[in-house]
């Protein structure tokens, strides 16, 4: 029964604290959380600015961002690959097949999600706050942190959506990371490798660990969000 042995393998892997597994888990978290952090630092203010300013081409930009939410990971990976490959414009940095390249590729995937969904959330809040904030004399740049802070409960979900995208994708990190053992191997690429080698229990075991981690991160964020919501109404 592959399921039983998969579960047993997963439990055994975790209990044994297998250093190779821990490395893979740690790198997975580092890459995905790093990408989400960078994408949030860029995407939250970008989305808020897009909600507040009217300019020619704004509609096209919003449509483009929404479309990029569905950017196939392999395409993002390929673009970053072309940028970073030896012959590419940033080839001299020597970043291809490093975790940094993987973070860059995942930022490309997560940034549109965070920016587009933040735009929606902040725009709705701004409709409610606009007159009061203008009456208080706030300039638009000054409104950005205020609106982001007051939209914080909804934005937790936005960032989680971004984290879900980063932790689930395999195409981009595979292309720009190369799945090098001990250097750029993360959970999703390891699962692909083990599956193709026919080691289904290990692949499933890794899958269960990944699922557990994602569930843990989401549960934590949910609890924080709910507690804050109850307290602040």
């Amino acid at each position, binding site marked *: 029964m592959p399921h039983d042995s998969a579960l047993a393998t997963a439990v055994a892997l975790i209990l044994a604290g297998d250093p190779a597994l821990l490395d893979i888990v740690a790198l997975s978290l580092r890459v995905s959380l790093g990408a989400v952090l960078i994408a949030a630092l860029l995407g939250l203010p970008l989305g808020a600015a897009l909600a507040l300013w009217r300019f020619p081409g704004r509609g096209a930009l919003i449509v483009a961002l929404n479309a990029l939410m569905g950017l196939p990971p392999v395409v993002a990976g390929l673009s970053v690959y072309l940028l970073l490959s030896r012959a590419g414009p940033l080839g001299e940095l020597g970043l291809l097949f490093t975790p940094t390249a993987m973070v860059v590729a995942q930022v490309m995937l997560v940034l549109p999600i965070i920016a587009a969904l933040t735009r929606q959330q902040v725009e709705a809040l701004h409709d409610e706050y606009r*007159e009061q904030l*203008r*009456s*208080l*004399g706030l300039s638009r740049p000054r409104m950005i942190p205020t609106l982001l*802070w007051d939209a914080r409960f909804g934005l937790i979900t936005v960032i989680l959506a971004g984290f879900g995208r980063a932790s689930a994708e395999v195409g981009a990190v595979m292309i720009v990371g190369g799945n090098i053992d001990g250097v750029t191997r993360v959970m999703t690429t390891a699962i692909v490798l083990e599956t193709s080698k026919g080691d289904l229990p290990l692949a499933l075991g890794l899958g269960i660990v990944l699922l557990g981690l994602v569930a843990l991160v989401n549960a934590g964020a949910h609890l924080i969000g709910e507690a804050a919501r109850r307290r*602040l109404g």
Partner: protein
Amino acid sequence: MNTMLQAPALTAVAPLALEAVDFVHRGQPLLSDVSLRLADCRRTLVLGPNGAGKSLLMRLAHGLLAPSQGRVHWEGAAPRQAMVFQHPVLLKRSALDNLLYALAVAGTPWRHRRPLARAALARFGLAALARRPARVLSGGEQQRLALARAWLLEPGMLFLDEPTSSLDPAAIKAVEAAVDDFHRRGTRILMSTHDLHQARRLADEVVFLCGGRLLEHAPAERFFTAPDTPEAAAFLRGELID
């Protein structure tokens, strides 16, 4: 009531003039040819049937909206202004933090903010609620917090757009007392209401709007006893006019 917040005597507030103001929205003229001059430290009540343009007039005067035609300008230096809305917009943080925020935006030095905010909470009877999230306060408490926030800004002119229309009598009384406090401190008041009794209690003068036109701008005494226009007379008798 506490006296920590005795404001420095406000210098005379420049008159505010609206000159032949039109406001058109999607081809619909909502205000037409409104001219109005507000001077001194009077309490001016804006009256009129629903849809007369009362809220619009307040927003144009406050500068939240720009007129389609005509102009709104201060005859001198623009004073600090504040506005209290029908539905108070409070930030998702504690009552105290809402006030600290307003002070920060106004540029009050950091070390003065907390004592000022505490004193304002006490003045408006909210001291016990300082740490409560503003959004879970009752309607009356929220409106008092909005007034406390306006109070901290020491406005030369205060706009209130139907501030009591969804409040119970006790809360209405608190708002009216606050309006008097502002007035005593030297703040010019422009307030809209659909409550004629309230207007009689508060008004020094009345602006009467009907169908997007300013029909009367008169001392309260004269407006309530001998209105110039048949529309105002009908409105005062409680008749439905359009």
